[in-house]
Protein backbone atom coordinates (compact mmCIF):
# COMPACT_ATOMS: atom_id res chain seq x y z
CA UNK A 1 0.00 0.00 0.00
CA UNK A 2 1.51 3.36 -0.99
CA UNK A 3 1.58 6.61 1.00
CA UNK A 4 -1.23 8.24 -0.99
CA UNK A 5 -3.50 5.29 -0.33
CA UNK A 6 -2.67 5.41 3.37
CA UNK A 7 -3.33 9.16 3.50
CA UNK A 8 -6.64 8.64 1.76
CA UNK A 9 -7.62 5.94 4.25
CA UNK A 10 -6.48 8.18 7.07
CA UNK A 11 -8.59 11.13 5.90
CA UNK A 12 -11.63 8.96 5.27
CA UNK A 13 -11.37 6.99 8.48
CA UNK A 14 -10.70 10.06 10.63
CA UNK A 15 -14.00 11.67 9.64
CA UNK A 16 -15.91 8.86 11.33
CA UNK A 17 -13.85 9.01 14.51
CA UNK A 18 -16.19 9.35 17.52
CA UNK A 19 -19.02 10.55 15.30
CA UNK A 20 -21.26 12.75 17.46
CA UNK A 21 -25.02 12.35 17.49
CA UNK A 22 -27.58 15.14 17.82
CA UNK A 23 -26.66 17.88 20.29
CA UNK A 24 -28.86 17.71 23.42
CA UNK A 25 -29.08 21.51 23.52
CA UNK A 26 -32.07 22.00 25.79
CA UNK A 27 -31.11 19.30 28.27
CA UNK A 28 -27.64 20.74 28.65
CA UNK A 29 -28.98 24.29 28.93
CA UNK A 30 -31.36 23.23 31.69
CA UNK A 31 -28.51 21.63 33.60
CA UNK A 32 -26.26 24.64 33.06
CA UNK A 33 -28.93 26.95 34.43
CA UNK A 34 -29.57 24.69 37.42
CA UNK A 35 -25.89 24.46 38.17
CA UNK A 36 -25.38 28.22 37.90
CA UNK A 37 -28.31 28.81 40.22
CA UNK A 38 -26.89 26.48 42.83
CA UNK A 39 -23.47 28.11 42.46
CA UNK A 40 -25.02 31.52 43.02
CA UNK A 41 -26.88 30.21 46.06
CA UNK A 42 -23.72 28.67 47.46
CA UNK A 43 -21.82 31.88 46.86
CA UNK A 44 -24.51 33.90 48.63
CA UNK A 45 -24.44 31.48 51.55
CA UNK A 46 -20.67 31.75 51.79
CA UNK A 47 -20.69 35.52 51.94
CA UNK A 48 -23.36 35.51 54.62
CA UNK A 49 -21.37 33.20 56.88
CA UNK A 50 -19.84 34.76 59.92
CA UNK A 51 -16.43 36.04 58.95
CA UNK A 52 -15.17 34.90 62.31
CA UNK A 53 -14.17 31.48 60.92
CA UNK A 54 -12.04 32.91 58.15
CA UNK A 55 -10.58 35.51 60.45
CA UNK A 56 -9.50 32.73 62.78
CA UNK A 57 -8.14 30.72 59.88
CA UNK A 58 -6.36 33.77 58.62
CA UNK A 59 -4.69 34.54 61.89
CA UNK A 60 -3.72 30.90 62.43
CA UNK A 61 -2.44 30.53 58.90
CA UNK A 62 -0.68 33.85 58.72
CA UNK A 63 2.50 32.81 60.42
CA UNK A 64 3.00 29.61 58.43
CA UNK A 65 1.89 31.00 55.11
CA UNK A 66 3.86 34.19 55.31
CA UNK A 67 6.95 32.09 55.87
CA UNK A 68 6.13 29.97 52.79
CA UNK A 69 5.31 32.95 50.62
CA UNK A 70 8.33 34.93 51.72
CA UNK A 71 10.63 32.01 51.01
CA UNK A 72 8.93 31.44 47.65
CA UNK A 73 9.48 35.06 46.69
CA UNK A 74 13.04 35.00 47.90
CA UNK A 75 13.60 32.08 45.57
CA UNK A 76 11.89 34.01 42.78
CA UNK A 77 14.17 37.02 43.30
CA UNK A 78 17.13 34.72 43.13
CA UNK A 79 18.47 35.22 46.63
CA UNK A 80 21.62 33.14 46.72
CA UNK A 81 21.32 29.97 48.67
CA UNK A 82 23.90 28.76 51.13
CA UNK A 83 25.21 26.24 48.66
CA UNK A 84 25.59 26.05 44.94
CA UNK A 85 24.23 22.91 43.27
CA UNK A 86 26.71 20.69 41.55
CA UNK A 87 26.08 19.09 38.18
CA UNK A 88 25.54 15.39 38.74
CA UNK A 89 25.88 14.20 35.20
CA UNK A 90 26.43 16.91 32.66
CA UNK A 91 27.18 14.38 29.95
CA UNK A 92 23.88 12.63 30.43
CA UNK A 93 22.02 15.92 30.35
CA UNK A 94 23.54 17.90 27.51
CA UNK A 95 22.46 21.45 26.86
CA UNK A 96 20.89 22.13 23.53
CA UNK A 97 22.80 24.10 21.02
CA UNK A 98 21.73 27.65 20.41
CA UNK A 99 20.01 26.84 17.13
CA UNK A 100 17.64 24.45 18.79
CA UNK A 101 16.89 26.70 21.73
CA UNK A 102 13.47 28.12 21.04
CA UNK A 103 12.97 30.26 24.08
CA UNK A 104 14.94 32.38 26.48
CA UNK A 105 14.60 29.63 29.04
CA UNK A 106 17.70 27.50 29.12
CA UNK A 107 17.27 23.73 29.23
CA UNK A 108 17.85 22.49 32.70
CA UNK A 109 20.59 20.26 33.97
CA UNK A 110 19.56 17.97 36.77
CA UNK A 111 21.79 18.64 39.73
CA UNK A 112 22.45 16.72 42.90
CA UNK A 113 20.70 18.01 45.97
CA UNK A 114 22.88 19.50 48.59
CA UNK A 115 21.81 18.66 52.11
CA UNK A 116 21.45 22.35 52.95
CA UNK A 117 19.80 23.49 49.75
CA UNK A 118 16.93 25.93 50.06
CA UNK A 119 14.71 23.65 48.02
CA UNK A 120 15.31 20.78 50.41
CA UNK A 121 14.50 23.04 53.33
CA UNK A 122 11.28 24.16 51.67
CA UNK A 123 10.33 20.60 50.87
CA UNK A 124 10.84 19.54 54.46
CA UNK A 125 8.56 22.37 55.56
CA UNK A 126 5.73 21.27 53.30
CA UNK A 127 6.06 17.57 54.15
CA UNK A 128 4.16 17.85 57.42
CA UNK A 129 1.48 19.98 55.81
CA UNK A 130 1.06 17.48 53.02
CA UNK A 131 0.74 14.54 55.39
CA UNK A 132 -1.91 16.38 57.39
CA UNK A 133 -3.71 17.49 54.22
CA UNK A 134 -3.86 13.91 53.00
CA UNK A 135 -5.21 12.69 56.33
CA UNK A 136 -7.94 15.30 56.37
CA UNK A 137 -8.77 14.90 52.68
CA UNK A 138 -9.10 11.14 53.11
CA UNK A 139 -11.44 11.59 56.06
CA UNK A 140 -15.21 11.87 55.52
CA UNK A 141 -16.69 15.27 54.61
CA UNK A 142 -15.20 17.81 57.00
CA UNK A 143 -17.19 20.82 55.99
CA UNK A 144 -20.21 19.73 57.91
CA UNK A 145 -18.09 18.66 60.85
CA UNK A 146 -17.25 20.49 64.00
CA UNK A 147 -15.73 23.95 63.57
CA UNK A 148 -12.33 22.90 64.86
CA UNK A 149 -11.99 20.10 62.25
CA UNK A 150 -13.31 22.39 59.55
CA UNK A 151 -10.80 25.03 60.54
CA UNK A 152 -7.96 22.54 60.45
CA UNK A 153 -8.98 21.42 56.97
CA UNK A 154 -9.06 24.96 55.58
CA UNK A 155 -5.73 25.66 57.22
CA UNK A 156 -3.92 22.73 55.65
CA UNK A 157 -5.43 23.50 52.26
CA UNK A 158 -4.06 27.03 52.47
CA UNK A 159 -0.71 25.69 53.63
CA UNK A 160 -0.68 23.30 50.69
CA UNK A 161 -1.41 26.13 48.26
CA UNK A 162 1.41 28.21 49.73
CA UNK A 163 3.77 25.22 49.50
CA UNK A 164 2.74 24.64 45.88
CA UNK A 165 3.44 28.26 45.03
CA UNK A 166 6.88 27.96 46.59
CA UNK A 167 7.61 24.79 44.59
CA UNK A 168 6.43 26.26 41.27
CA UNK A 169 8.46 29.38 41.92
CA UNK A 170 11.51 27.31 42.81
CA UNK A 171 11.02 25.23 39.66
CA UNK A 172 10.80 28.28 37.41
CA UNK A 173 13.85 29.82 39.02
CA UNK A 174 15.83 26.61 38.62
CA UNK A 175 14.71 26.29 35.01
CA UNK A 176 15.75 29.86 34.24
CA UNK A 177 19.15 29.17 35.75
CA UNK A 178 19.42 26.04 33.66
CA UNK A 179 19.86 23.87 36.74
CA UNK A 180 17.26 21.52 38.12
CA UNK A 181 17.60 20.57 41.77
CA UNK A 182 17.05 16.83 42.09
CA UNK A 183 14.83 17.38 45.14
CA UNK A 184 12.27 19.19 42.97
CA UNK A 185 11.18 15.87 41.45
CA UNK A 186 10.33 14.36 44.82
CA UNK A 187 8.84 17.55 46.13
CA UNK A 188 6.57 18.02 43.09
CA UNK A 189 5.44 14.36 43.28
CA UNK A 190 4.46 14.80 46.91
CA UNK A 191 2.54 17.97 46.14
CA UNK A 192 0.82 16.34 43.16
CA UNK A 193 -0.33 13.45 45.30
CA UNK A 194 -1.77 15.84 47.89
CA UNK A 195 -3.40 18.01 45.23
CA UNK A 196 -5.18 14.97 43.83
CA UNK A 197 -6.30 13.86 47.25
CA UNK A 198 -7.74 17.29 47.92
CA UNK A 199 -9.33 17.39 44.46
CA UNK A 200 -11.22 14.17 45.01
CA UNK A 201 -12.02 14.88 48.63
CA UNK A 202 -15.65 15.39 49.51
CA UNK A 203 -14.46 18.12 51.82
CA UNK A 204 -13.43 20.31 48.90
CA UNK A 205 -16.85 21.60 47.92
CA UNK A 206 -15.99 25.14 46.96
CA UNK A 207 -16.10 25.20 43.12
CA UNK A 208 -13.46 27.95 42.92
CA UNK A 209 -11.12 25.88 45.06
CA UNK A 210 -11.87 22.80 42.96
CA UNK A 211 -10.91 24.63 39.79
CA UNK A 212 -7.76 25.99 41.36
CA UNK A 213 -6.81 22.47 42.41
CA UNK A 214 -7.49 21.20 38.87
CA UNK A 215 -5.24 23.89 37.40
CA UNK A 216 -2.62 23.11 40.01
CA UNK A 217 -2.91 19.40 39.19
CA UNK A 218 -2.14 20.02 35.54
CA UNK A 219 0.82 22.30 36.18
CA UNK A 220 2.38 20.13 38.88
CA UNK A 221 1.85 17.00 36.76
CA UNK A 222 3.82 18.65 33.96
CA UNK A 223 6.55 19.62 36.41
CA UNK A 224 6.67 16.07 37.77
CA UNK A 225 7.06 14.69 34.27
CA UNK A 226 9.75 17.23 33.43
CA UNK A 227 11.76 16.83 36.63
CA UNK A 228 11.40 13.07 36.78
CA UNK A 229 12.42 12.31 33.23
CA UNK A 230 14.89 15.18 32.94
CA UNK A 231 14.25 15.46 29.23
CA UNK A 232 15.87 18.90 29.02
CA UNK A 233 13.30 19.73 26.39
CA UNK A 234 12.82 23.46 26.02
CA UNK A 235 9.49 22.84 24.33
CA UNK A 236 8.23 21.02 27.42
CA UNK A 237 9.46 23.90 29.51
CA UNK A 238 7.56 26.30 27.24
CA UNK A 239 4.43 24.21 27.69
CA UNK A 240 4.76 24.33 31.46
CA UNK A 241 5.25 28.10 31.33
CA UNK A 242 2.22 28.40 29.07
CA UNK A 243 0.10 26.35 31.47
CA UNK A 244 1.19 28.46 34.41
CA UNK A 245 0.58 31.70 32.54
CA UNK A 246 -2.59 30.74 30.68
CA UNK A 247 -4.22 29.48 33.83
CA UNK A 248 -2.87 32.32 35.95
CA UNK A 249 -1.87 29.74 38.53
CA UNK A 250 0.53 31.89 40.52
CA UNK A 251 -1.91 34.80 40.59
CA UNK A 252 -4.74 32.52 41.68
CA UNK A 253 -2.63 30.91 44.39
CA UNK A 254 -1.58 34.27 45.76
CA UNK A 255 -5.09 35.66 45.35
CA UNK A 256 -6.65 32.72 47.18
CA UNK A 257 -4.12 32.83 49.95
CA UNK A 258 -4.46 36.60 50.35
CA UNK A 259 -8.25 36.62 50.09
CA UNK A 260 -8.69 33.88 52.63
CA UNK A 261 -5.86 34.93 54.79
CA UNK A 262 -5.98 38.70 55.17
CA UNK A 263 -3.42 38.64 57.90
CA UNK A 264 -0.75 37.12 55.70
CA UNK A 265 -0.02 40.20 53.63
CA UNK A 266 2.67 40.24 51.03
Amino acid at each position, binding site marked *: *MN*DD*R*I*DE*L*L*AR*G*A*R*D*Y*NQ*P*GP*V*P*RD*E*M*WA*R*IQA*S*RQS*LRAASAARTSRPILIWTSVGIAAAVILSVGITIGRRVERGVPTATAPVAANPVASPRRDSASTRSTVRPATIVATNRDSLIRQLREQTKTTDRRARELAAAPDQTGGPPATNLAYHLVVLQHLAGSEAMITAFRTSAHRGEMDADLATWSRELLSTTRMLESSAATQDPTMK*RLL*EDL*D*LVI*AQIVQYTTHGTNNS*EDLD*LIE*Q*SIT*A*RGVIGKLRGTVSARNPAAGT
Partner: protein
Amino acid sequence: MLLDCTNVVTEAANAQPSAHPRLLDRQLVTRCLAQDALAERALYDAHVDRVYRLMYRMAGDADLAADFTQETFIRAFERLEQFRGDSSLATWLHTIAVSIALNGMRKVNRIQGRTEMIDNMPSLAAEAFRFTGDLKARLHAAIDALSEKLRPVFVMHDVEGYTHEEIAGSLGIPVGTSKARLFDARAKLRIALAAFAGDHVT
Protein backbone atom coordinates in the same frame (compact mmCIF):
# COMPACT_ATOMS: atom_id res chain seq x y z
CA MET B 1 -33.70 48.27 24.39
CA LEU B 2 -35.75 45.15 23.90
CA LEU B 3 -35.48 45.57 20.14
CA ASP B 4 -31.71 45.98 20.38
CA CYS B 5 -31.44 42.89 22.45
CA THR B 6 -33.61 40.85 20.15
CA ASN B 7 -31.50 41.92 17.20
CA VAL B 8 -28.28 40.96 18.87
CA VAL B 9 -29.73 37.67 19.95
CA THR B 10 -31.06 36.90 16.50
CA GLU B 11 -27.80 37.89 14.83
CA ALA B 12 -25.78 35.91 17.28
CA ALA B 13 -27.93 32.85 16.98
CA ASN B 14 -27.53 32.93 13.23
CA ALA B 15 -23.95 34.13 13.42
CA GLN B 16 -21.62 33.00 10.71
CA PRO B 17 -17.92 33.32 11.37
CA SER B 18 -17.57 35.94 8.63
CA ALA B 19 -20.22 38.38 9.91
CA HIS B 20 -18.34 40.81 12.18
CA PRO B 21 -17.72 38.13 14.77
CA ARG B 22 -15.77 40.35 17.17
CA LEU B 23 -18.49 42.98 17.20
CA LEU B 24 -21.14 40.37 17.88
CA ASP B 25 -18.91 38.85 20.55
CA ARG B 26 -18.58 42.17 22.35
CA GLN B 27 -22.28 42.91 22.12
CA LEU B 28 -23.18 39.49 23.41
CA VAL B 29 -20.69 39.59 26.25
CA THR B 30 -21.85 43.03 27.32
CA ARG B 31 -25.44 41.85 27.41
CA CYS B 32 -24.53 38.71 29.28
CA LEU B 33 -22.60 40.67 31.86
CA ALA B 34 -25.72 42.75 32.34
CA GLN B 35 -27.53 39.52 33.29
CA ASP B 36 -29.49 39.45 30.04
CA ALA B 37 -30.95 35.94 29.94
CA LEU B 38 -31.75 36.11 26.23
CA ALA B 39 -28.18 37.05 25.39
CA GLU B 40 -26.86 34.22 27.54
CA ARG B 41 -29.00 31.76 25.63
CA ALA B 42 -27.92 33.33 22.35
CA LEU B 43 -24.27 32.96 23.27
CA TYR B 44 -24.92 29.34 24.18
CA ASP B 45 -26.86 28.64 20.98
CA ALA B 46 -24.20 30.26 18.82
CA HIS B 47 -21.39 28.06 20.13
CA VAL B 48 -22.82 24.93 21.71
CA ASP B 49 -22.89 22.76 18.60
CA ARG B 50 -19.23 23.20 17.80
CA VAL B 51 -18.16 22.80 21.41
CA TYR B 52 -20.27 19.67 21.87
CA ARG B 53 -18.99 18.12 18.66
CA LEU B 54 -15.40 18.65 19.73
CA MET B 55 -16.10 17.32 23.22
CA TYR B 56 -17.74 14.24 21.74
CA ARG B 57 -14.84 13.67 19.36
CA MET B 58 -12.41 13.91 22.25
CA ALA B 59 -14.41 11.89 24.78
CA GLY B 60 -16.14 9.37 22.51
CA ASP B 61 -19.04 9.24 24.91
CA ALA B 62 -22.29 11.21 24.90
CA ASP B 63 -22.52 11.63 28.67
CA LEU B 64 -18.94 12.79 29.01
CA ALA B 65 -19.36 15.13 26.04
CA ALA B 66 -22.46 16.66 27.63
CA ASP B 67 -20.68 17.00 30.99
CA PHE B 68 -17.67 18.70 29.43
CA THR B 69 -19.88 21.01 27.36
CA GLN B 70 -21.97 22.00 30.37
CA GLU B 71 -18.87 22.64 32.44
CA THR B 72 -17.45 24.76 29.64
CA PHE B 73 -20.44 27.08 29.56
CA ILE B 74 -20.79 27.21 33.34
CA ARG B 75 -17.17 28.23 33.63
CA ALA B 76 -17.43 30.62 30.69
CA PHE B 77 -20.42 32.47 32.16
CA GLU B 78 -18.70 32.61 35.50
CA ARG B 79 -15.55 34.10 34.00
CA LEU B 80 -17.10 36.16 31.24
CA GLU B 81 -15.79 39.40 32.70
CA GLN B 82 -12.29 38.06 32.07
CA PHE B 83 -12.98 37.90 28.32
CA ARG B 84 -11.00 40.81 26.90
CA GLY B 85 -11.69 40.27 23.23
CA ASP B 86 -8.05 39.61 22.32
CA SER B 87 -9.23 36.45 20.62
CA SER B 88 -12.68 35.59 19.34
CA LEU B 89 -15.28 34.40 21.81
CA ALA B 90 -15.23 31.03 20.03
CA THR B 91 -11.48 30.65 20.60
CA TRP B 92 -11.85 31.72 24.22
CA LEU B 93 -14.63 29.17 24.74
CA HIS B 94 -12.60 26.47 23.05
CA THR B 95 -9.65 27.20 25.32
CA ILE B 96 -11.89 26.49 28.29
CA ALA B 97 -13.47 23.48 26.60
CA VAL B 98 -10.21 21.81 25.63
CA SER B 99 -8.78 22.35 29.11
CA ILE B 100 -11.87 20.79 30.67
CA ALA B 101 -11.83 17.87 28.24
CA LEU B 102 -8.14 17.14 28.80
CA ASN B 103 -8.48 17.32 32.57
CA GLY B 104 -11.67 15.27 32.43
CA MET B 105 -10.16 12.60 30.22
CA ARG B 106 -7.12 12.46 32.44
CA LYS B 107 -9.38 11.71 35.38
CA VAL B 108 -11.35 9.13 33.42
CA ASN B 109 -8.12 7.46 32.35
CA ARG B 110 -6.87 7.51 35.92
CA ILE B 111 -10.05 5.92 37.14
CA GLN B 112 -9.82 3.29 34.45
CA GLY B 113 -6.26 2.60 35.47
CA ARG B 114 -4.82 3.90 32.26
CA THR B 115 -2.67 6.48 33.94
CA GLU B 116 -0.05 6.82 31.28
CA MET B 117 -0.70 8.47 27.98
CA ILE B 118 0.54 6.23 25.28
CA ASP B 119 3.43 7.66 23.35
CA ASN B 120 4.68 4.41 21.93
CA MET B 121 1.44 4.13 20.02
CA PRO B 122 2.47 2.06 17.02
CA SER B 123 3.45 -1.03 19.00
CA LEU B 124 0.42 -0.88 21.27
CA ALA B 125 -1.89 -0.15 18.41
CA ALA B 126 -0.44 -3.06 16.49
CA GLU B 127 -1.12 -5.22 19.52
CA ALA B 128 -4.72 -4.04 19.65
CA PHE B 129 -5.27 -4.70 15.99
CA ARG B 130 -3.98 -8.16 15.99
CA PHE B 131 -7.47 -8.98 17.18
CA THR B 132 -9.46 -7.05 14.64
CA GLY B 133 -9.49 -7.03 10.93
CA ASP B 134 -11.23 -3.74 10.58
CA LEU B 135 -9.03 -1.00 9.21
CA LYS B 136 -11.28 1.79 10.43
CA ALA B 137 -11.39 0.34 13.92
CA ARG B 138 -7.64 0.10 13.82
CA LEU B 139 -7.36 3.74 12.85
CA HIS B 140 -9.76 4.85 15.55
CA ALA B 141 -7.90 2.91 18.22
CA ALA B 142 -4.65 4.37 16.94
CA ILE B 143 -6.14 7.88 17.28
CA ASP B 144 -7.28 6.96 20.82
CA ALA B 145 -3.72 5.93 21.58
CA LEU B 146 -2.14 9.20 20.47
CA SER B 147 -0.54 11.17 23.26
CA GLU B 148 -2.26 14.01 25.07
CA LYS B 149 -0.29 16.51 23.03
CA LEU B 150 -0.98 15.02 19.62
CA ARG B 151 -4.57 13.82 19.83
CA PRO B 152 -6.32 17.17 20.39
CA VAL B 153 -4.47 18.71 17.45
CA PHE B 154 -5.27 15.79 15.16
CA VAL B 155 -8.91 15.66 16.23
CA MET B 156 -9.39 19.40 15.88
CA HIS B 157 -7.67 19.66 12.51
CA ASP B 158 -8.25 16.44 10.62
CA VAL B 159 -11.51 15.35 12.20
CA GLU B 160 -13.31 18.62 12.97
CA GLY B 161 -11.65 20.89 10.43
CA TYR B 162 -10.28 23.62 12.70
CA THR B 163 -7.54 25.82 11.30
CA HIS B 164 -4.08 25.83 12.85
CA GLU B 165 -4.74 29.37 14.06
CA GLU B 166 -7.88 28.22 15.88
CA ILE B 167 -6.07 25.24 17.35
CA ALA B 168 -3.13 27.34 18.45
CA GLY B 169 -5.47 29.83 20.10
CA SER B 170 -7.47 27.13 21.85
CA LEU B 171 -4.49 25.14 23.08
CA GLY B 172 -2.32 28.13 23.89
CA ILE B 173 0.50 26.99 21.62
CA PRO B 174 2.25 28.60 18.65
CA VAL B 175 0.87 27.86 15.17
CA GLY B 176 4.15 26.16 14.28
CA THR B 177 3.77 23.80 17.22
CA SER B 178 0.26 22.94 16.11
CA LYS B 179 1.55 22.09 12.63
CA ALA B 180 4.43 20.05 14.03
CA ARG B 181 2.10 18.07 16.27
CA LEU B 182 -0.26 17.36 13.40
CA PHE B 183 2.68 16.14 11.36
CA ASP B 184 3.78 13.85 14.20
CA ALA B 185 0.25 12.56 14.76
CA ARG B 186 -0.23 11.73 11.09
CA ALA B 187 3.15 10.03 10.98
CA LYS B 188 2.22 7.79 13.91
CA LEU B 189 -1.14 6.95 12.36
CA ARG B 190 0.47 6.20 9.02
CA ILE B 191 2.80 3.75 10.73
CA ALA B 192 -0.14 2.06 12.43
CA LEU B 193 -2.07 1.82 9.16
CA ALA B 194 0.93 0.77 7.11
CA ALA B 195 1.69 -2.08 9.52
CA PHE B 196 -1.88 -3.22 9.22
CA ALA B 197 -1.89 -2.89 5.46
CA GLY B 198 1.31 -4.86 5.32
CA ASP B 199 -0.43 -7.70 7.07
CA HIS B 200 -3.50 -7.66 4.87
CA VAL B 201 -2.67 -6.17 1.50
CA THR B 202 -0.33 -7.47 -1.06
